[in-house]
Each structure stands twice: as structure tokens, then as C-alpha cells.
């Protein structure tokens, strides 16, 4: 909205209130990782209680449920959504499509600061009387706004307000990303030459724009119910022996609205990861991505279908039972485009020239994690199999494999991959490998056994499992094992943090294109790219993003902007 947008000079305009998409991306990433760290600590608090019940008396039932809720919400919304769209999206979209910046830089900056406010409001809920809400990240009413749930007064209000603010931020960012992709592509950059990273983020952003309003509506209505005493979601209730003044509302309405947002949300975090991992695999296997068009259509199909599967989270919610058929069918249909993506990643590896760099390790780890997590999704999508498994640790295992770990691995892989471009330095390889192995193997150790606790019937969201006859002693031992693994994995993240901090100052200097990648962001005149990204001339694109190892070329890659008549020597 500003008229002039010259290269800024002062410290404040350059590093704090910057309108440069690269700076904003870093701000988003750092903030998201910082709250992510809070989420990680909370998960370990939960694990301590679950693995060694009663040994840590500062984790009482209240704190447990508060940790659970904040852990889930932070990870899904404030970490993953923010880092993938606000961080990776912001950094990569303009660079990858050959633009000088987002089309609305000021809006972009605003988006970050509003996001920061959302984070601060969220964190503020930790210090208000009663603490943060402990209603579970799904915030189901009536429970979320009634006594008997921790944080039912201040906590829930701040939670909802923070979400509403977050949605405003996400919408500002989203409008920007979509418009930028549509309007600011460099000459020759057709939609079907976009790198899959951009496709993934683009589709995820469209989904976000149309799914977040559902959360907004349910959030505002829930606030009304809490603060003004309306009965949108609240039927007549006797709470703790007290009859309340509510009447006639339907808790199921909230669940429908929530999941109408919630399911697309899980793909909002999955699609960018799909895109990024495609680029990592192709680049580090030195081979073009297999079936590019199929990959694009799969992204579009997943995006579209993901809006009509939401009630698979509600198979045992008491909704109209006839819906089960519809949603089971649509849910399993989604597996087909997803499967196509997995096949194409695998086939990209085949007959490749696989460099087992750190980003590639994370990408391979992602495929393995995502496959198992997606496959367990098929149990849950198949109505009748979901019924015994719903709300057990099987579900917890499913979504951690597919969402908790898989996209996180991609984020790590992406950071190792793009760090040289962002900072001009390489990250330390040895530390990176240790980080990968501990995280990957550790995550298997944490979440694979959880499936079996789920088969056994152990319900999720339980503070303690004492004196249940059907739970054998061995299950408690297993829980202790899982806790130890979780602590180790959490500690391993310190390697990553150290590596980040150390490499940013001391890392080996990177060349402009250390991985030999084809996409535009590696072809900038400066590393890190300067203000305006491209120096005097924006690039002109001549080919798709995956021209690796073409026959008859000396080098094993051709950048997208290399002129066709002058092959790179």
C-alpha cells in the first residue's frame, strides 16, 4: 500500500518492519520454531506423566489436559501452518516464480505481525487465572466452555481470540500468495512449469482461504455461546448439578464446522510438504520428477476432495448414520491421488543418481513415515474399522506419523536444503546426519508401538490408566519406553538448534547453487539474494523445473532460465 519501496536502510525497516519477503519468511520461521519448541516441551511433559505416572506431581490432571490441548493446537496451527505457508511460502514463492517480491509487500509484513499477536495472545493464556484451555485441540463444546474443564473461563476465550487473529493473518498472507502466483510469474513461467513446491503451497493456500472461514465461524459462535450466553451449540444442560440457561443448540453443528475446517487443515500442512519433498527428491536424485503432470493433478485432486471428507472424524460422533457411507467412500478415494504421489516419488528414485545428502535423508525418511501414516489412515477411513479404533492411541499414532513427523521431516530437510541460499553458508553435515538418525529412528520408536496400544483399546486423552483390567502391565512398560524415546528425540533437536545457530555464523561458505538445482531461486545473482532478488533483470524461463540429466548435455542439470540455444557447459 506504500507508494515507494526502495531498498530500506535503517535497522528497523531492514530487519524488523521489513517488507522484504525473505526477511518476513525468516521472521515467520523463527517465530514458528520458537512456539514449536514450546509444543515439543509440552509433549514431553505429557510423555513424562504417561510413561511414569505419579512420579512427577507437577503434572496433575489439569496441567496434563492443558498441555495436551496447547501441544496439539500449537503444533498444527502455530507451527506447521505458519512455517509452511508463512515461512517456506514466503521465501520460496517469489524466488521460484521469478518475482521481485510478493505483490503486496506491506500486507505481507502486516500478516507476520498479526500472526505474532496471535502467538502472544496464545502464550498469554498460560498466565491468566485458570491457565490455558484444556478442552483438547478440537475445542468441542459444550465441554470447552463449561466448568470441569481447565481454563474454561479465560483460557478458552484467549484461545478463540488467538485463533481468530491467526485466521486474519493467514488470510492476509494467503491472498498475497495466491495473487502472486497468479499474477507475478516471470516470463515463460507457465503454471505447468512451476516447481511442485509452489504448486503444493499454492493449493494449500487456496484450501486455507476457503477452510479457515469455517473455523472462524465456529470460533465466533463459540465465543458468543461462552460470553453472551447464546445457544448455537449448547442444548439444555445440567452442568455439575446446575441447570444452565442454554437450550436447543446442537454440539454436532460445531463438530461439522470444525472438521469442515479441520480436515482441509491437515492437507494444508501436507500439500506444501508434498511439494517440497518432490523438489528435494528430484534434485538430490539428479533425476526429473516422475510424472510431473500427474503430480500436479494429484495435488489439485487432493485439495478438492479434502473438502468433502470431513465427517470421517465423526464416525462415532452420533451424526446421521447414513453419512458413514458417503464419507467412507470419499475418504478412501483420496487415497488414490495420494498413492500416485507416493509412487511417483519412488519412481523418481529408480534409475536415479541418488546423493545421500542430509536433505535427501530427510526426504527418504518422509516417504517411509508418510506411507505408514497414510496407510493407517485407511483403517480409520474405512468406517467399520474406525469404530473400535477411534479415539484410541491408534489415531494418535496415525496422525503423528502422517502429520506430526512426516511434514516435520520435510521442514528439516527443506531447511538443510535452502539454508545455503538463505544464509550463504552450508549447515554442518555431521550434526545434520546425527539429527536425522536420532529423529527418524526415534520417531519410529515413539509412534510405531502406539498403534498396538490403540488396537488394545487404550483411549487417547487419558491422564492415567490405573486399574483398568484389560490393560496389561506390559502396556505400562511400553509407555515408559515410548517416553524415553520421546525424551531422546526432543534432546536431539538441540543438535539442530545448535547447528542452525553455529552454521549461520561459522558454517562453510556456500556457492550460489551448491546442490546443482534447476529452479530459479538458485540462479539469483547474489547469495543470499539481495533486495529485489534479481539484480537488474528478472529471469526468463525456458523450461520446466526438472531438467536433470537430460541426454546430450554435459552437466546433469539445466536451470529453468538457461537459454535454450546455449546449453550450459
Amino acid at each position, binding site marked *: 500500500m506504500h507508494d515507494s519501496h526502495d531498498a530500506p536502510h535503517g535497522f528497523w525497516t531492514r530487519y524488523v518492519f521489513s517488507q522484504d519477503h525473505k526477511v518476513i519468511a525468516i521472521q515467520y520461521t523463527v517465530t514458528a520454531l520458537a512456539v514449536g519448541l514450546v509444543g515439543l516441551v509440552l509433549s514431553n511433559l505429557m510423555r513424562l506423566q504417561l510413561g511414569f505416572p505419579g512420579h512427577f506431581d507437577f503434572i*496433575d490432571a*489439569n496441567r496434563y*489436559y492443558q498441555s495436551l490441548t496447547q501441544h496439539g493446537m500449537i503444533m498444527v496451527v502455530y507451527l506447521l501452518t505458519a512455517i509452511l505457508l508463512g515461512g517456506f511460502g514466503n521465501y520460496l514463492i517469489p524466488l521460484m516464480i521469478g518475482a521481485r517480491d510478493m505483490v503486496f509487500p506491506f500486507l505481507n509484513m502486516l500478516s507476520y505481525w498479526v500472526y505474532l499477536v496471535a502467538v502472544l495472545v496464545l502464550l498469554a493464556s498460560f498466565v491468566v487465572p485458570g491457565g490455558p484451555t484444556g478442552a483438547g485441540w478440537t475445542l*468441542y463444546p*459444550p465441554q470447552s466452555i463449561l466448568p*470441569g474443564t*481447565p481454563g474454561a473461563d479465560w483460557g478458552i476465550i484467549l484461545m478463540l481470540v488467538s485463533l481468530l487473529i491467526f485466521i486474519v493473518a493467514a488470510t492476509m498472507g494467503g491472498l498475497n500468495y495466491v495473487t502472486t502466483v497468479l499474477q507475478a510469474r516471470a516470463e515463460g513461467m507457465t503454471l505447468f512449469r512451476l516447481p511442485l513446491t509452489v504448486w503444493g503451497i499454492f493449493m494449500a493456500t487456496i484450501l486455507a482461504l476457503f477452510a479457515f472461514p469455517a473455523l472462524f465461524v465456529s470460533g465466533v459462535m463459540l465465543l458468543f455461546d461462552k460470553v453472551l450466553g447464546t445457544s448455537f451449540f449448547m*442444548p*439444555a*444442560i*445440567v*452442568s*455439575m*448439578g446446575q*441447570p444452565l440457561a442454554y437450550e436447543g443448540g*446442537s454440539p*454436532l453443528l460445531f463438530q461439522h464446522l470444525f472438521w469442515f475446517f479441520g480436515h482441509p487443515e491437515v492437507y494444508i500442512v501436507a500439500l506444501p510438504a508434498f511439494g517440497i519433498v518432490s523438489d528435494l527428491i528430484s534434485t538430490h*536424485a539428479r*533425476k526429473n520428477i*516422475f*510424472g510431473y503432470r*500427474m503430480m500436479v493433478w494429484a495435488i489439485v485432486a487432493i485439495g478438492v476432495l479434502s473438502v468433502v471428507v470431513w465427517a470421517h472424524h465423526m464416525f*462415532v460422533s*452420533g451424526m446421521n448414520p*447414513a453419512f*458413514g*457411507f458417503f464419507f*467412507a*467412500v470419499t475418504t*478412501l478415494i483420496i487415497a*488414490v491421488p495420494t498413492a*500416485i504421489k*507416493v509412487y511417483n516419488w*519412488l519412481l523418481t528414485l529408480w*534409475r536415479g*543418481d*541418488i546423493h545421500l545428502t542430509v536433505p535427501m535423508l530427510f526426504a527418504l525418511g518422509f516417504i517411509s513415515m508418510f*506411507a505408514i501414516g497414510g496407510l493407517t489412515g*485407511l*483403517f480409520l477411513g*474405512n*468406517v*467399520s474399522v474406525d*469404530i*473400535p479404533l477411534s*479415539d*484410541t492411541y491408534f489415531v494418535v499414532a496415525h496422525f503423528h506419523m502422517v502429520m506430526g513427523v512426516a511434514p516435520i521431516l520435510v521442514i528439516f530437510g527443506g531447511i538443510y536444503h535452502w539454508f545455503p541460499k538463505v544464509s550463504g553458508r552450508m549447515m554442518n553435515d555431521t550434526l545434520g546426519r546425527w539429527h536425522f*538418525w536420532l529423529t527418524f529412528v526415534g520417531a519410529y520408536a515413539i509412534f*510405531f508401538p502406539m498403534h*498396538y496400544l490403540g*488396537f488394545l483399546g487404550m*483411549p487417547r*486423552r487419558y491422564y492415567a490408566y490405573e486399574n*483398568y*483390567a*484389560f490393560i496389561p502391565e506390559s502396556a505400562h512398560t511400553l509407555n515408559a519406553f515410548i517416553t524415553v524415546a520421546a525424551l531422546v528425540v526432543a534432546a536431539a533437536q538441540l543438535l539442530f538448534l545448535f547447528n542452525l545457530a553455529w552454521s549461520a555464523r561459522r558454517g562453510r561458505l556456500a556457492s550460489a547453487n551448491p546442490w546443482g538445482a534447476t529452479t530459479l531461486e538458485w540462479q539469483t545473482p547474489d547469495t543470499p539474494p539481495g533486495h529485489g532478488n534479481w539484480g537488474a533483470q528478472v529471469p526468463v524461463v525456458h523450461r520446466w523445473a*526438472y531438467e536433470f*540429466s537430460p*541426454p546430450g548435455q554435459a552437466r*546433469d542439470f539445466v536451470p529453468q532460465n538457461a537459454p535454450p540455444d546455449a546449453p550450459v557447459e
Partner: protein
Amino acid sequence: MAIAIVLIVIVIAALAFHALSPWWLTPLASNWGLIDDTLTVTLLITGAVFVAVNLFIAVAVIRYRHRHGRRAAYEPENRKLEHGLTWLTAVGIVAMLAPGLVVYAELISPPKDALVVEVVGQQWQWAYRFPGEDGRLGTSAMRFVGADNPLGLNPADPAGRDDALAVGPELHLPLGRPVRVLLRSKDVLHNFFVPPIRTRMDMVPGMVTEFWFTPTRAGRFDILCAELCGVGHYNMRGVMVVEPQADFERWLAGLPRFAAARQVAATPPGGDLAARGRGIAQARGCFGCHSVDGAASVGPGWRGLFGHEVELADGSRLKADAAYIAESIRAPAAKLVKGYPPIMPPYALDDGEVAAIAAYIASLDGAADGTR
């Protein structure tokens, strides 16, 4: 290279874990073997894909890892292959989905002759209701809930007068007879979950949900609440006792009927004060957090409280007299008991009610009455 080995090890470890793990579905206790079969079909298909995907990565890494002079093939797409894989996946999906849907169709159509039982949830306890001789359950509404009518039955509905009420954790069911379970909640979402019977459903305030099954094995089974319902969620326990028809009928016959129970509970104040206190505590949901057998649950147990010393969170001690109990009820946050969170909501009870509860708590001492 290491990644290939690790992936192979993971596959082997996963298969070994599956084969050797002592953790698996609880032994089936209902007619829903079909669900287990569908699960097995799904497990076989997905298991095969899991193994295939990981081994494929391993093989690809071993065969095509970078070596000096290697160059990748250039292969943008291969229609036949993509075509074939898509179909293969579709076949796999149909193989899982088809049986699943067939089973589901059965799951949602209860047999006509099923025994009807209503389960009522409230934070954090269970109650049950069986139809009386007329075979019909009476209607209900939350506005009828009171000390003498904990389930909120409609006093004017003749169908409800003979309904048998079981307020408390225990539910008995006859062996081998289909049961249609109607679910209702007084406050928040709950979920009636007995792992060995496989099927279950949420309990939603403001509506009635249902599911059905036939118990096929006698015994005592844990009833769990599997929908987050507040701090006491993990402690919302019940017991389902499956027994031969005759035993069940004996148990059922011993249950109070709605109309009669109302008469008894409506003893006017000035009758047995402690009994009135118990009724109030029941209706107000105190037992969700306070046990009366001395065990600690969400809140401190009530047995052995009255007249004894209580240690407060700030380290001070005091003697629990009627005034303390009154304060604990009306302003629970004023004096916190050590080791408990400040979660108890304040209750605006009148003096008579508070006195009744105090009398009831006092009566718990010394096991004089043997409540519960």
C-alpha cells in the same frame, strides 16, 4: 547406504513386533467378529504396501546411489506404469472398502427384538435405565433433573413410571441377547466404550444416539469414556457385567422403579438429613470428583474428612468442621487442600442444603452406614 539398511531393519523389526507383541485386540466379547475380519483384511493389504514401499526405497538406494560417473536416466513419465499403478491402488481400496461398507450397513440396523437400555452420562459417572413391563422408555428433558430425578425423566409420561433405574457404575446385560443401547448425556460429550465389544458411540447432550451388539461372553468388562469430557475424563469408569438371563433378571428386578424412587427421594427436609445430603450431592454431581470410600480421585475423598485435620496447600492445617465444609462448597478456592488443583466450581447452595451435605459427610465416618 545406511538408510537402506535401516529401512530394511525397520521392516523386519515391524514385522517381528507385530508377530511377537503381546498387545493386540482384546478378546472379542460380542457378535462383531466381522469388524475384526475387516480390520484383518485392511491390515494385510496395508501391511503389504508398507513392506513394499520401504523395501523399494532400500533397493533403489542400494542400486542407484551416487557413484563416480553415474548419471540418472531421463524419464519424465511412463503412462502405462502410472495407469497400472492407479488401477492396482483402486483395486486395493475397493477390497478394503467393500467389506467395510457391508459391515457398516449391519452396524446401523439394530434387530427389532433387541433389549433396549439407555445409558446416561454425566461428568464423570454413568447411569442406566431399562424399560419396565410396558417395554417402553419414558421421555425425558433436562429441566426435570433434580435430587429426586437424577435422569430427568418426564413425571407426566406414563411410559416412564415403571422404568428401572441403575444410578452408578454397574450395568448388567443378559448373555446372548441383542442389546440396543440408547445414549444420552446430561452435560458434555462422552463416549460409551467397551473395547471387547468393538462397537460404540458418542453421547451427545441434546440428542439421543445409539448402537447395538450382542454380548457373547460372560464376564466383567471395563466401561471407558472415550470422548474428552473434562479433567475427570480418564476416571469416568463403569463396569459392564454380562451374565446369564436369569441372573440378569434378578438384578433387574432389584432396581428401583422411577415412580417409587421419586417418592423415597422426596423425603421432606427434616427427615433423615444425611440421606437428603446424599441426594443433593448426587444431583449436583459431587461424586464426579469425590469418592465416599476414602479414595482420592479428582478431589479428596469424603470418608474420614469430617472432624479430622486437613492440610492446606499453603502448608497450614485446620480441622474440618461444618463451617469449613460450607466454605469449601461455596468458595472452594479460598482454602485449597494440599495436592489438589483449584478446579472445583463454587456452588451456590442454601444453608439447608449445605447442612445436609455436611451431615452426610459426617455420617460417612467410621463406616457406620456402609454407603456403597
